[in-house]
């Protein structure tokens, strides 16, 4: 018996026109936590889909050796039967079912007559929840617990399948720092119980924290596997992008002019629970050519503030004043907000940003279709030309602008969203987590675009939970906690420590 639980040998997978993986070899030692990192589109998820049987045996070449035997999975249930469980980035839980029902979904605990034994189900679920350290009643509905806890339910579900190799695809992407820490601790805890994990992640600090070795994948090839002691951020980034990354943030020389936008006493309540204040008397301003950051933890009310400001697309009982160039403006509907020169690029591209079944061209024109109208009709040819200009200037990687946006990678989707808003010709852009879920190289491009917008005299508000990002690109940073602004820092006086202190400040009650 070798020390490796898994060996993937020379895996090659091609899609029509694209070689997604070429001769990838991956060895995972028994009982280790193995990190896989790489840019979006590098082939990480494809590799895991090959491993878990999503792409069945025969659609790829190469061998998978699991526990010293060659395995040929035809479906996910084949791989699960062997103890390989994958937890996808987008959780596969049914919101209206209870925790216990979700854990035993398609694996129901049956009693007499083949009927479901609910006592058994709930007590077994409780044991599993204890193993993952989740203090919730097994009968609680999934929709009533937070994303962090849902992630733990997914792991409990994996444990119920007697998992030997647990694959986590960007498990902390949607979690706040506390939940992330808890999850990473749990992975280490499970390692102590002999469960091997593969963790796909963008976050280099968490890779360093939990993993025993790191394999970097780039352009469908495994570049190298680095042992724990040799892991450095620089080395991983170099492997990922194939070049030394001297600067992670482009140079930005601010040229700040007069105030463009001022928000006074902005207050909004929860849309259903109208007594719950989500945004608490926020005051802020943005000047021409300035990049202003809003730093806040998940649930601090960042998106709630931005969306309530942008045409009241979130919340209830909204009050406050908005001034542009010192004159009060109305932003009661999205149309009014756009007409008054505001743009809001959402943190959730797929749900709120793009029409995924439509092409790049029509997505870019969506917010400013009126600009293309000639004699009452939309000019298709001009639209094509405009889209092509943005494809070139934003470096959207697609063969042409007739490609559906659902087929683009995260970074390119984000560029389409930004193109859409830039084409609407705004004075102030609110960018909500503009680099979430996109790779290092594309991030740099997005930062460059943000700089260009500022250089063109626009005001940019960047909402982010990544402090290095805010510190790297902003001229001024506000901190937000529990819906209220808790501090304002010019970039010279902002440090991670002070920002975090203000981001976690609790209200005096």
């Amino acid at each position, binding site marked *: 018996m070798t020390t490796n639980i898994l060996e993937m040998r020379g895996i090659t997978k091609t899609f029509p*026109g694209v070689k997604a993986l070429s001769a990838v070899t991956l060895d995972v030692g028994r009982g280790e936590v193995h990190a896989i990192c790489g840019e979006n589109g590098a082939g990480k998820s494809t590799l895991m889909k090959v491993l878990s049987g999503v792409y069945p045996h025969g659609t790829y070449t190469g061998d998978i050796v699991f526990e010293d035997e060659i395995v040929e999975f035809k479906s996910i249930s084949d791989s699960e039967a062997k103890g390989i469980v994958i937890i996808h980035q987008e959780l596969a839980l049914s919101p209206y079912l209870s925790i216990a029902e979700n854990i035993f979904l398609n694996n129901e605990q049956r009693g007499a007559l083949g009927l479901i034994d609910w006592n058994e189900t709930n007590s077994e679920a409780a044991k599993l929840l204890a193993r993952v350290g989740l203090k919730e009643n097994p009968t609680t509905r999934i929709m009533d617990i937070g994303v962090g806890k849902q992630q733990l339910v997914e792991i409990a579900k994996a444990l119920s399948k007697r998992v030997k190799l647990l694959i986590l695809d960007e498990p902390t992407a949607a979690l706040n720092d506390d939940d992330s820490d808890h999850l990473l601790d749990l992975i280490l805890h499970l390692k102590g119980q002999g469960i091997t994990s593969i963790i796909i992640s963008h976050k280099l600090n968490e890779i360093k924290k939990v993993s025993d070795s790191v394999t970097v994948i780039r352009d469908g090839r495994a570049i190298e596997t680095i042992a724990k002691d040799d892991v450095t951020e620089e080395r991983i980034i170099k492997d990922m992008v194939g070049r030394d990354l001297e600067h992670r943030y482009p140079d930005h020389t601010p040229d700040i002019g007069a105030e463009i936008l001022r928000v006074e006493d902005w207050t909004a309540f929860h849309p259903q629970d109208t007594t719950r204040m989500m945004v608490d008397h926020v005051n802020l301003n943005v000047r021409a050519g300035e990049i202003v950051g809003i730093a806040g933890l998940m649930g601090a009310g960042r998106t709630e503030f931005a969306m309530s400001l942008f045409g009241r697309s979130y919340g209830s009982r909204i009050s406050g004043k908005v001034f542009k160039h010192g004159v009060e403006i109305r932003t009661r509907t999205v149309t009014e907000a756009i007409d008054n020169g505001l743009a809001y690029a959402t943190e959730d591209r797929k749900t709120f940003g793009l*029409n995924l079944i439509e092409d790049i061209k029509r997505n870019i024109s*969506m917010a400013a279709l009126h600009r293309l109208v000639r004699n009452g009709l939309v000019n298709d040819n001009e639209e094509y030309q405009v889209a092509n200009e943005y494809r070139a200037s934003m470096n959207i990687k697609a*063969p042409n602008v007739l490609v559906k946006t659902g087929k683009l*990678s995260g970074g390119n989707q984000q560029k389409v969203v930004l193109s859409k808003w830039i084409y609407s010709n705004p004075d102030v852009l609110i960018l909500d987590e503009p680099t979430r879920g996109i790779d290092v190289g594309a991030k740099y491009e997005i930062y460059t675009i943000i700089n260009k917008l500022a250089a063109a005299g626009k005001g940019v508000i960047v909402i982010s939970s990544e402090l290095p990002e805010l510190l790297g690109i902003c001229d001024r940073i506000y901190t937000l906690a529990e819906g209220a602004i808790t501090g304002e820092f010019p970039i010279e006086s902002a440090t991670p420590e002070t920002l975090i202190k203000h981001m976690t400040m609790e209200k005096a009650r």
Partner: protein
Amino acid sequence: MSDQETTPATGGVVNPRENKTASWLSHVLADLGKNGIFIALVLVVVLFTFLTDGILLRPQNISNLIVQNGYILVLAIGMVMVIVAGHIDLSVGSVAAFVGACSGVFAVQWGLPWWLAIIMSLGIGALVGVWQGFWIAYVGIPAFIVTLAGMLIFRGLALVVLGNSNIGSFPAEYRALGNGFLTDVFGEFDLDPLTLGVGVIAVIALIVQQVRTRLGRAKYGQEVEPLVWFVAKLVLITAALGFFAYALASYKGIPVTLIVLAVLVLIYGVVMNRTVFGRHIYAIGGNRHAAELSGIKNRKVDFYLFVNMGILAALAGLIFTARLNLAGPKAGDGFELEAISAAFIGGAAVQGGIGTVGGAIIGGLIIGVLNNGMSILGIGIEWQQAVKGLVLLLAVAFDVYNKRRSGGR
């Protein structure tokens, strides 16, 4: 599908070593794939021409095909728009019956002039649309429920208006809407010159429009299809149109229903493709949240969609009533299902966001040819129903299969 990975590139990937013929062929094949629904119509026509020993394509039958299916095609236009926006309308058959009954009251019982009766009837259709649009767009009740209720409400109101009897003997001008022909304007000939003339004009207009589009695209540096294929397609379409015009000319001329339909197809084709309203319908159907956050007024668009559907349902009711010369309680029974089938067979997506007026018309014609062909063959109504159901299922299954193969969601 995950956005983490490079998905297979669509289109545009051309192997440089491929020779010209191969790329030409691949273009033709891609085009045929895109126009699968059109091919399906041709196949169905060929099949039934063969099975009925050519009766299907006799001039009289072709004319009948249009007149018999006119009202379904009118409904299909509105329905595909509603479906693209992600809704459905189950009430159109009842609305058609209700409006037909009202038009009977106006034109026959009250003796109003035919044109006034028609305008008032369309107005009632618009009011019905306002009613349903209000509940759907502004109260937020799913269209399925609102129009299911509407199906019962307007069927009931139709019966109330009719008062348990039929209304018949409509004025001749009104009846022309359903079974009138534009003919013999230049005197009597074996082949109606007006029909042939209109046919020629239609062909010329089509060619001019196609060439202009092609030139326009080329001017903006967009890829255009190979010239040979472009010409070949035009020749084929010209031949089909020519045959169609010849058939109509050798029978009674141009059906009034066809004129109404042609005008509607032109108008709504432009509305869906080239107007802001049409684009907003696609945007809403593709992603409602994204549309809203792009400043599109979803509610307003939804509302006017249903007003429009109400008017088109009214028009369908008028055409049907005119054709039968009778407003009866059974009118419009099952229209909604045929219109919905037409839209889906024509390639509309069940989740919304995808669908075209042209597709819905072809879908409606496929159903029409099936109805007509099976009737000629003497197949009973029971089997006709079953076959149509099967065709709908297969059409959507084919669509789903196609999408999966091309890596869509």
